[in-house]
């Protein structure tokens, strides 16, 4: 094929490819010389084309590996023999630094400058190396592409970076001394320490060195996590920082106040952030932050809060800003803010317990002001009803307790809002603590009800609607925390009952508002009975009006006929025992029917008749102990005067007593026993009423012989013709008409009654649950019962157990014998 042979060209050279060993040395010679020039910054005269072509040629001839190794050797010796020597030359003065003693010997400035010189020389070496290797990489582009890719070698650039690390950073300066990397680390840490101490340092210089460490890897594989920076410097940095801040934090806790500490900690965190940005690496920011947070906050929070100038001090002195600093610090390390919430809880519990104790102490000391007044002051005070004096010390203590608790809550709410950004976790803690102290106080329910009572009776007088609103809201606020709502209901009913019947309430509208608020807050069932009371009142008014017009229509209009105002109360709804006197026992009530004089009895029978016409089948029981009467009393002329006439308002009993004297000649008297027989009023009520009528100076309508403070058997009473009063209207008070704190006996009674009603509630709940579930384990039954009743009160576990026992006895439930855990079955 002659044509083809002629057409090919240069085929003869074919064989020369593999036999070019001699060529390598010459070609490498050219390259090596050029590399030398490049490293000595003398590259501008070199021809890139020539160098590239030569490197290309070597690789084409399959000498890539040799080339690679030669370049690596060249770099190694250049770095080891030239560059390192130069850097070490800058180091001599500094070497002592490593021994530690040098620290004090050099002045700060000298040390800083020496460090900077070293950093500068290292930075220079690194940057030169980068530039040179960039150029070498360009020349050896083809080798990188063909040889390194094929043989899975790191690129020559990466390889030379590894060489830099090994030759410059990891080689000891001299036998037995630290490596340049260790020295570098130490110098940077030293400079950072200077920065922390406030001395200006060259941030860019450090940054350049950090940049170098970030560009180098622990191994030649160049795994991201193996950056020399991460593997060496950062570890040291975090470690030494932790040590520094641990020490600083401890010192500050001892030396400065909490506010300063907070500000300092905040500043340190910001500083470290800035430092990472300007001097080190951004990637360190979260880590160093964590270190500072650990050392200055997490581990110190407890100490900080408990400092003398800590949280308690701040709250006490309204240091809202500093509190917010504490909050910010802890929020930074834990979203739950455990230490702060703990501190808040402790503080509230402390202050709250104080309030509780004060209230208990106050209620236990006897009413002192009363003793300074003359005899009968008590009764006389009561006669004024609303006056502040009249409320005895216990009631004052109750009102104070409520106000104190409310102001405690207001205070912490304000702290939470002003300093803690209304944080959920903290406000929950505050609320829980408030609930704890309110429920820890056994008289809480009663006191809250008394607080409302006091406000209803006089507190809201002359107040704007908005003010009233605030007051109601206060009551509701504190009520919200109360767990034993059933006890509160008992007291509230009792107090409300007295307010309504004795017409002590300032405004029925406000009363109703209160009820509707409770309805929203505590639910329908809670207010059901209270609402029924109001309903009774309305119905009674209609009834009384109806009766009045009924009487008018009879035509028999007797001007002397007594007018009747009546309240018909549903027996189950009203806590009538509230009117029973302190000395009375249950059971006395209603047993003895009082004897009415004919004029009164006529009216009574008339009403009973009228009532039974419209409401057949109902029985009316007269609660004479709760009524009151308006009597016109006429007293004969005294010397130089005229006939005096007074409107006397008194209890129904007092009226009955006074009516006896109508028929009695002025000079005669009746004995106590006689009065008792003729009225059949219980002795207890009788003495109390007689006391008001004959002992209290301002309402002394009767005269008692012998004159003494107490009404005793054998005392005789006569009409006081000389009675005088400044006012036309005279109100005869009866002891214990107002609402005040219960006595111990009363309390026991209330408790007992309460326990009884609780027992019923528990039994009802248990039966309800069992009816629905049929079989249930003991533990589950307990849990469900408690959760069902929690709206009303917090049931006592023992009480539930007793109720269950009782239900088993009565065969509502039975025990399941074969069950692995204690269980019950419902018996239909």
């Amino acid at each position: 094929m002659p044509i083809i042979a002629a057409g090919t060209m240069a085929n003869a050279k074919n064989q020369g490819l593999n036999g070019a060993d001699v060529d390598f040395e010459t070609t490498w010679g050219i390259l090596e010389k050029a590399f030398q020039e490049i490293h000595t910054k003398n590259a501008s005269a070199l021809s890139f084309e020539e160098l590239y072509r030569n490197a290309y040629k070597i690789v084409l001839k399959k000498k890539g590996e040799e080339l690679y190794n030669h370049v690596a050797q060249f770099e190694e010796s250049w770095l080891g023999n030239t560059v390192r020597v130069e850097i070490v030359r800058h180091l001599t003065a500094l070497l002592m630094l490593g021994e530690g003693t040098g620290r004090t010997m050099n002045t700060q400035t000298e040390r800083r400058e020496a460090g900077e010189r070293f950093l500068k020389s290292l930075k220079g070496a690194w940057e030169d190396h980068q530039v040179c290797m960039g150029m070498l990489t360009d020349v050896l582009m083809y080798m990188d592409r063909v040889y390194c890719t094929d043989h899975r070698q790191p690129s020559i650039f990466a390889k030379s970076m590894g060489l830099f690390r090994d030759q410059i950073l990891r080689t000891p300066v001299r036998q037995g001394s630290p490596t340049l990397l260790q020295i570098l680390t130490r110098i940077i840490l030293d400079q950072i320490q200077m920065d922390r101490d406030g001395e200006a340092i060259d941030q860019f210089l450090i940054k350049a060195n950090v940049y170098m460490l970030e560009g180098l890897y622990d191994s030649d594989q160049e795994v991201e996590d193996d950056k020399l920076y991460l593997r060496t410097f950062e570890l040291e940095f975090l470690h030494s920082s932790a040590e520094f801040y641990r020490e600083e934090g401890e010192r500050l806790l001892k030396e400065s106040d909490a506010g300063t500490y907070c500000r300092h900690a905040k500043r340190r965190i910001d500083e470290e952030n800035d430092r990472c940005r300007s001097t080190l690496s951004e990637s360190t920011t979260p880590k160093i932050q964590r270190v500072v947070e650990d050392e200055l906050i997490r581990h110190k929070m407890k100490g900080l809060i408990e400092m003398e100038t800590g949280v308690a001090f701040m709250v006490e002195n309204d240091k809202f800003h500093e509190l917010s600093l504490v909050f910010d610090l802890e929020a930074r390390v834990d979203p739950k803010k455990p230490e702060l919430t703990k501190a808040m809880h402790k503080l509230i519990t402390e202050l709250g317990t104080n309030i509780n104790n004060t209230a208990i102490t106050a209620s236990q000391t006897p009413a002192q002001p009363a003793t300074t007044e003359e005899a009968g002051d008590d009764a006389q005070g009561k006669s004024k009803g609303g006056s502040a004096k009249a409320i005895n010390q216990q009631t004052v203590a109750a009102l104070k307790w409520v106000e104190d608790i409310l102001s405690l809550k207001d205070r912490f709410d304000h702290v939470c809002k002003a300093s803690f950004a209304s944080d959920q976790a903290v406000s929950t803690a505050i609320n829980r603590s408030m609930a704890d102290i309110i429920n820890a106080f056994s008289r809480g329910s009663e006191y809250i009800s008394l607080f409302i009572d006091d406000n209803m009776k006089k507190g809201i007088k002359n107040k704007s609607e908005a003010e009233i609103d605030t007051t109601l809201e206060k009551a509701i606020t504190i009520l919200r925390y109360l767990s034993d709502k059933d006890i509160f209901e008992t007291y509230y009913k009792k107090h409300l009952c007295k307010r309504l019947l004795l017409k002590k309430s300032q405004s029925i509208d406000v009363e109703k508002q209160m009820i509707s608020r409770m309805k929203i807050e505590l639910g329908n069932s809670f207010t059901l009975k209270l609402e029924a009371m109001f309903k009774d009142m309305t119905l009674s008014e209609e009834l009384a009006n109806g009766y009045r017009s009924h009487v008018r229509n009879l035509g028999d209009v007797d001007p002397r006929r007594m007018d009747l105002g009546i309240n018909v109360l549903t027996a189950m709804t009203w806590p009538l025992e509230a009117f029973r006197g302190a000395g009375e026992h249950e059971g006395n009530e209603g047993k003895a029917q009082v004897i009415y004089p004919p004029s009164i009895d006529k009216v009574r029978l008339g009403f009973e008749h009228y009532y039974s016409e419209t409401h057949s089948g109902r029985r009316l029981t007269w609660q004479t102990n709760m009524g009151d009467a308006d009597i016109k009393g006429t007293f004969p002329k005294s010397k130089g005067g005229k006939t005096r006439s007074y409107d006397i308002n008194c209890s129904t009993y007092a009226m009955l007593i006074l009516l006896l004297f109508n028929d009695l000649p002025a000079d005669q008297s009746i004995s106590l026993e006689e009065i008792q027989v003729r009225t059949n009023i219980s002795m207890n009520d009788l003495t109390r009423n007689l006391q008001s009528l004959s002992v209290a100076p301002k309402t002394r309508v009767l005269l008692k012989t012998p004159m003494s403070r107490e009404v005793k058997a054998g005392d005789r009473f006569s009409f006081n013709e000389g009675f005088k009063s400044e006012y036309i209207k005279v109100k005869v008070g009866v002891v214990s008409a107002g609402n005040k704190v219960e006595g111990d006996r009363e309390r026991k009674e209330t408790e007992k009654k309460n326990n009884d009603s609780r027992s019923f509630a528990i039994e009802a709940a248990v039966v309800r649950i069992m009816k629905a579930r049929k079989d249930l384990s003991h533990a589950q039954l307990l849990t469900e019962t408690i959760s069902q009743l929690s709206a009303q009160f917090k049931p006592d576990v023992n009480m539930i157990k007793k109720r269950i026992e009782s239900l088993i006895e009565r065969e509502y439930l039975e025990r399941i014998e074969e069950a692995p855990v204690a269980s019950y079955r419902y018996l239909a």
Partner: protein
Amino acid sequence: MAATDRPVLAFKQGLAGLFKSEKLADFTIVCGPHTFRVHKAILCALTKYFDALPNFAEGAQNSIELKAVGSGDGDDEACDDPEAVKLMVHFFYHLDYSADALAIAPSPPTVDNAFGGVTTSYKGKKKKRIVTHGWGESVDDAPTAPTSPSTDGNMLMHAKVFAAAVKYRVPALKDLAAEKFAAAVAINFNHASFAEAARIAYTTTPEDMREIRDQVVEVIHANAELLMKHDVMEVVHGDSNLSCELLRKAHGMSAVAVGEEDREDVEIALQRLRQDISGVLP
């Protein structure tokens, strides 16, 4: 289509215009007899090679001389064919190039050339078989358009352009040249320049760049008569890689081992295979 095409077209025209007018040209490339006035920005857009220049003498002089083959010092493998460089520069501005037609026209579809009727008809039969084997798209139009500008038949020049593209790191040109080479080889493998093209492929491109090497192996494998040509045989004999790949092909394996463990086995087998081949060769 038109909306996106038009700007591209305009840009291409502008690019070609720049080359022609040499307006704003700031760099000179010299290779053998040719001198090109070019724009650094455009070079840098397409190749890494010219990025490196600023640090060297060429950067200061704003010109580079790419050493041409045969310019004197005996290192021709590392030097460039001025024609290939010319096509490369042409590519920079046109994103395409077309090589000159072959010096000696390949056998036309008709049966009346130096190769004789027998060879041609034989080749025709082969072609069909190749097509039915689904050998690749470039083959499909091979019989009809041997001299079209995009698939011009100068496989030797395409091989050289391919090598230059690898050397000067112009990936876009590399792909284009490989495509053109494949198309050209498919038609013109019987041409005298095939042996040289094969040699270029196996001596001036890295082993792992399979594009044109695969073409050579495939064509020789599919057209055994090529092994009867002295010049082709000389190339096969001179390059152990090529002979090895052919042998693998002959055994129905892929030309190069893919798997890692496969590679080691082949290294061991390689020696034996070489001996086998040298035994077969004349």
